[in-house]
Every structure is written in structure tokens, then in C-alpha cells.
């Protein structure tokens, strides 16, 4: 079904956006800073993608799940959404882990001192 992959990506992105909003992890912590990180991530990975496509390493496989909209040869529209998902997931994880890691490290330090 054309568009199924995009739909799956959008549902996933909605999920991490909800987590972000609920726990103030990334965009909901600092919107501008998050936007800057996201833009850098997208540019970084798109350059990587285009280089890989240019070298002929990977390309669109045989499927009927894509919309068929291409941003560049062998770079489907869906790739941008995949990269948004990758970057946002990374930063949700990082945002969620920081307080946990800080607490753990503090406790470990105290344990060592006493």
C-alpha cells in the first residue's frame, strides 16, 4: 500500500512528540535549541545519504510502501521523516537519561565517600 511507510513514520514521530511534550525532553524543553539540533542532524544525515546513494551503496528496494515522491534520485520523501524520527528519538532518550544518570552518578559518588 503506497504511503504505508510514511504513515508508520508519522505515527512513530507522533509517539516521540507526545513523550517529548509529556516529559519536556527536547522541543518542549528548549524549542529553538532543539530546532537547531534537528536542522544540523537532518543536514548531516542527508549528506551521508546522498553520498551513499551517489556511491551506489543503497537505493530504494522493491516495494509498494513508498509514496513515490523523490527528493533526489533514490532519496524518497520518507527519508526526511525517518531522519526526523532518528534525531528526535536520540534527543528524547538523551533528555530522559540525563536526570537519571545524574542521580545515579551522585549516589555512586556518595557511596564511595561514606
Amino acid at each position, binding site marked *: 500500500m503506497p504511503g504505508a*511507510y510514511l504513515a508508520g513514520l508519522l505515527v512513530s514521530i507522533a509517539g516521540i512528540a507526545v513523550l517529548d511534550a509529556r516529559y519536556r525532553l527536547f522541543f518542549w524543553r528548549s524549542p529553538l535549541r532543539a530546532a537547531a539540533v534537528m536542522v544540523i542532524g537532518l543536514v548531516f544525515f542527508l549528506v551521508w545519504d546522498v553520498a551513499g546513494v551517489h556511491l*551506489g*551503496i*543503497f537505493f530504494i*528496494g522493491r*516495494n509498494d510502501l513508498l509514496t513515490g515522491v523523490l527528493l533526489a534520485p533514490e532519496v524518497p520523501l520518507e527519508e526526511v521523516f525517518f531522519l526526523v524520527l*532518528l534525531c528526535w528519538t*536520540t534527543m528524547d532518550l538523551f533528555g530522559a537519561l*540525563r536526570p537519571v544518570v545524574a542521580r545515579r552518578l551522585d549516589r555512586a559518588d556518595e557511596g564511595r565517600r561514606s
Partner: protein
Amino acid sequence: MTGSATYALLAVPFLAFAALVAVAAGAVSARRRGAGARRVGSVSAAVAGVVLLVMTAVFNNVIVGLGVVAYDDALISGARVGLFPVEDLAYAIGAALLLPACWVLFDRPRGTRDERPVRSERPNQPPRRPEETP
């Protein structure tokens, strides 16, 4: 093993760049907020990276299995994690190195206020009057 190192070599400059940014962020973080902050940042990013690797392993098997993406067997090492080339994992590593580092670097150095609730953000100054002189 058939195949080649082309895909693996492609990752080298990108991971090197991401690693450089990560080291820079570590240095900046330590200078601004002390070695403890650097440790929290790097441990958090490392754990996030491990989780991402696991998530990538699941996700990539799905998209390669469904034929969303395919690879030229002559340009990859041939080592696979299930269905996808092991080189794909470099994306997750790159993300964990680069993005948390950028987050740290884009932190506006205003004391140690950042990690607290937003309430203390506003300085105790009277609101500036709009445009006293045009």
C-alpha cells in the same frame, strides 16, 4: 567474505566529524559546568547510543525486510545484523555522538540555571518600556 569496505569507509568521515563535535562539547561542558556535567552528558549520550543501536537493529530489519531500502552487495562488507548490513549501525552511533553534543554546545551559558524548571528563567528586572525613542 565477498563485498568491499566502501560502505564502512563512507561512515569514517561522518563519524570522525561527529566525534570531534562530541569532544568539543565535552570540553565546553566541563569548562562551563565542571567535570561532573561532562560526565553526566557523556554517560547519557553513551547509554542513549546503546538504546539507539537496539532500536536500529529492530527498525532496519523491518525496512530492509519490507524492501524499503536495498544495498549493492559489492559495496558492503557482507556482515549483516539479521537482514541489514552492519554498517547501517553507524547512523545510530553518529546520532548519539553528534546530536547530544550540539545540544550541549547550543546551551546558552547563564550560570547553572538551565537544568532547572523554567520558572527562574526570567530575570528580576522591570519590563523594558517599548521603544522610548524611535
